[in-house]
């Protein structure tokens, strides 16, 4: 059932507006002594919430191995086509030769990137992450194309303990030596 609100006729003082104006003046005057809400940006930085989607970067595992295997899934899924990967072979002599592929060049155009996070979501190796970096500056368009070196500089090492490829290597070895569980 609808509630009927009674509209009382305005009193004389309410019709002059003057008490309302005084009330408004009181409110604005009290407001002058409240703490300001301004964040003075370059000196004060905002609190970045968990799960913030900032600049995408590449990471290495704790052993210093680059995690990207150049599968190009992120390049494929990237909606604005900001990622360009040039795949490369890992030489036979390298200790991680069994991984077979690594990016020869990995470029993310930060002028195209829309920070959607699909690359992070799609990566099977957990090699690309969106970091809390929100301010990317440069003086030319070229500076906004982050190459592989820059991406690893920004990303650094991710201390997760998966060691997927190390385990694969040891499993392979034990299989070859006939000491496997199977």
């Amino acid at each position: 059932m609808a509630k009927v609100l009674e509209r009382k006729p305005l009193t004389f003082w309410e019709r002059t507006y003057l008490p309302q104006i005084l009330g408004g003046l009181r409110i604005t005057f009290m407001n002058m002594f409240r703490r300001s809400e301004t964040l003075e940006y370059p000196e004060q930085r905002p609190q970045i919430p968990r799960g913030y989607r900032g600049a995408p970067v590449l990471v290495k595992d704790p052993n210093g191995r680059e995690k990207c295997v150049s599968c190009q899934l992120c390049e494929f899924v990237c909606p604005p086509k900001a990622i360009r990967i040039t795949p490369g072979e890992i030489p036979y002599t390298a200790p991680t030769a069994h991984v077979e592929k690594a990016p020869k060049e990995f470029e993310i155009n930060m002028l195209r990137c829309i920070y959607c996070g699909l690359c992070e979501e799609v990566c099977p190796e957990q090699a690309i992450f969106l970091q809390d970096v929100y301010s990317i500056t440069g003086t030319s368009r070229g500076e906004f194309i982050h190459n592989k070196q820059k991406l690893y500089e920004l990303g650094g090492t991710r201390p997760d303990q998966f060691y997927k490829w190390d385990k694969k290597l040891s499993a392979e070895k034990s299989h070859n030596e006939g000491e496997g569980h199977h």
Partner: protein
Amino acid sequence: MEIILLILRYLVSPLIVIAVLMGMCAYAVLAERKISSWIQNRVGPNRTQLPILAYIPVAGNILQRIGFSQPMADGLKFLFKEDVRPGHVKKFYYVLAPCLSLMTALLTCTVLPFGLWWGKDNLAHPIVLADVDIGLLFILAVSSLGVYGLVLAGWSSNSKYPFLGGIRASAQLISYELAMGVALLPVFLWSSRPGVVSPLNLYSIVQAQDNFWLVIWQPVSALLFLVCLFAETNRLPFDMAESETDLVGGFHTEYGSFKFGFFFIAEYAHMIVGSAVFVILFFGGWNFLPGIADPWPHNLIGSGLTIVWFLAKVVFFVFFFIWIRWTLPRFRYDQVMKLGWNVLLPLSVANFCAYLVFFALFPKA
């Protein structure tokens, strides 16, 4: 010797008055920005700093926080911006409008008394550029000429929004000038006591308030005059001519750089002179408090104190103007007209009649 005194009297003192008024305008702009930011829980301009001031240990920092150097930066910005003149304007009147606007605003301060000085005979004299007997009439006449600047700007800009702004400015001025004049008549009734040469003289109006400020005797007149003053100075909630939400910038849409600066300074000069007139008429000018008119020592220091006390009152009302601006929303155009003609004018006439009857029944000694 005579010549030096003449030069001091007619050349230097006006320059000082105008310099003080312009300085107050510049810092009124800063006050507007700062007070608005405080009311809205912001910080306001706090980055500008003169390099010299930055070397002062603690005070320099505080001066930067309160934006002390901001007016200089604002002024420089207006000075060095490119002076664009749109191709479709009426050139002569387009340039004339901001000059007219500023000129009328500055002209009104010539007849304003702002303090007392005591001669050898210990008689009080006003500190004023021109002690005119029709002082108040002069102020009313000249300050309403200021609308010519707005109307000319609106018309000569030759485009829609300034045109609408100019029309609104003139309509508003006509509606509120009448109520303002009638609201002031009881003040003259009050100040025209025996021995006073001219009740229109601002000095004699102030001296008539030595015991009771007129705001106590005539609160309705004071309120009516204050509302009309807001309308006359085109301040919110009555800034119909400018109303940036519906008219872009109103009359000054087509203006930039220093010509816009002229309008800007003129608005604040109007505001300061308006506050000064209000203080003189209703808040006892340099009289200390109701009942205590003249505690000042009768020498140069006393004269200085009267000026300081007067300016303190003026600064309070400038603050009040700003405070009101950030409290009340703008009226709609038809509401402004309705308030002017249906409320303020009848009320001021009724107020005047009431005081006429009062003074006829109880003639003062």
